[in-house]
């Protein structure tokens, strides 16, 4: 039996559809119930929904053998897991954004508001730029508008929210997409089952062109 942690929400539903097409369907998941775990015994697979940022925790600790997590989460928490496949969906980018026309002259300590503290720290450390990190848990875009920070480091999908608030991307840190990850120990003892899933999922990955 392979335990799969899926991220709750739109991305998770798309990912489940991919599993379904890949031959790992579990019809019970579509019934409107309060059940937390869905199993297809015949296919040897069990799905459960968790908060997207928790997927890597479930996988790293072995409660799930595999899971699907955004690259943003993997970069932020650096879990000790295998990253087996880029699903090429849920695509966006991690970027630095500031008020329109913002220019970093490097004279003062740069105030950076973000949910992704580690990513932001690593990015600016690689440029030897002195920063002051302000950890926020939501509505990051407000920070530069109210003068709480000079810039933000956040996920940018279409850029609409930024545009409507007179903000714009200053630079892109890294492209983000959903990744299929596996617990290292599970991979050793369920190699064939996990390899099969990866193979079938790979066939479902849509390429950009």
């Amino acid at each position: 039996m392979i335990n799969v942690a899926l991220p709750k929400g739109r991305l998770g539903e798309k990912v489940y559809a991919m599993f379904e097409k890949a031959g790992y369907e579990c019809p019970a998941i579509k019934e409107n119930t309060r059940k937390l775990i869905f199993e297809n015994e015949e296919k040897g697979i069990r799905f459960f929904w968790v908060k997207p940022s928790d997927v890597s925790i479930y996988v790293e600790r072995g409660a799930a053998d595999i899971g699907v997590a955004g690259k943003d989460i993997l970069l932020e928490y650096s879990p000790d897991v295998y990253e087996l496949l880029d699903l090429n969906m849920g695509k966006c980018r991690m970027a630095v954004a500031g008020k329109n026309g913002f220019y970093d002259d490097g004279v003062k300590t740069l105030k950076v508001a973000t949910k992704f503290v580690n990513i932001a720290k690593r990015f600016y450390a690689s440029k030897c730029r002195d920063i002051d990190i302000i950890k926020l848990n939501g509505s990051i875009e407000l920070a530069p508008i109210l003068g709480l920070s000079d810039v933000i480091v956040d996920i940018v999908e279409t850029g609409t929210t930024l545009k409507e608030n007179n903000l714009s991307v200053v630079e892109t840190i890294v492209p983000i997409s959903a990744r299929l990850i596996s617990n290292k120990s599970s991979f050793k003892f369920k190699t064939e089952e996990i390899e099969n899933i990866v193979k079938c999922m790979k066939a479902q990955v849509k390429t950009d062109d």
Partner: protein
Amino acid sequence: MIDNMLFKSEEKAIFALRALYNSYGYLPFKMSKFEEYDIYVRNKDFLVSDSVITFNDTNGKLLALKPDVTLSIIKNTTDEEGCKQKVYYNENVYRVSQRTHQFKEIMQAGLECIGDIDSYDIFEAVYLAAKSLDTVSPDFVLDISHMGIVSAILDEASDSQDFKKNAVRLISERNLHETEALCRAYEIEDSYKEKVCALVNMYGAADKVISALDNICTGERAAKELSDLKSLCALINKTEYKNNIRIDFSVLNDMSYYNGIVFSGFINGISDSVLSGGRYDKLIERMGRKSGAIGFALYLDLLEELDTEKKLYDVDVLVVYNDMTDASLVMDTVKELTDKGLLVSAQKAVPQRLRYKEIKWLCKEGV
């Protein structure tokens, strides 16, 4: 005779491992809980976590609660041609857990073989690592890989240290899509790119992987390193563990300390690697010495995950008496029950947190 049930998995393992290492001529090594901080700061990257708990000695010297055993053992050995020192240990170390990002006391058992290392010593260390895992559970996997091969193939592909550092990380993540992207970013020639990417998917039974390695270890240095791995695998094939020991290039350690064989052990039912080791001649070299060295550590605190059997009772019989009860009656009752092999607790009242199977009143019930 002590009841086996009383031991936790890690306690049983400690006794079995001591006997095992002793029988192969490894001598016990006991060390202090703290060491001078200096030794760790000079080899910071060798430590699993950067943070070390430090404090000042009465003379002002900065000491550290030991985060690692290997460095202390190296300091205690000397170079002697043709000889090697073989020691084993069972110690607690203090590190920041990668999962919780907080300090944790970690119980380790392991061995080190330092000196004029040859192919037999390497085999012996790998074999004892497998045997150590087997004492805990027969359902184990010991993955081995070779830093020399990885380093040779990456050196062929590029001179950039950044490229190599990132490639090692991606290979250990089995991350093929980003390895390909990395090779593109560094404009690695196709023939070399294929070799680097091949390493990402290089895992499985030794025979299968070695024939695949033959195709990519075409350079002079890589071929030489491969012959090293081949001779080890030939010896492993003659042992009872040939199906448990596999090759897996996702097992990688820091290139500035480790060279040659590195390995990592997994037990079915434990979510993390329980054993880690390898050849670290480069560390010894950095400490200004000539010897070679190989060793490993087994993380005993992780074995807790195996103790899934929950006990329903703390004791079999709860004997309850009061101030009026004759002490010799309590003594005789307890002795009679313990002689039968039962677990007994004698109390003057029924404790709220003690779970018992049956209760025996030596006084009026409920008083």
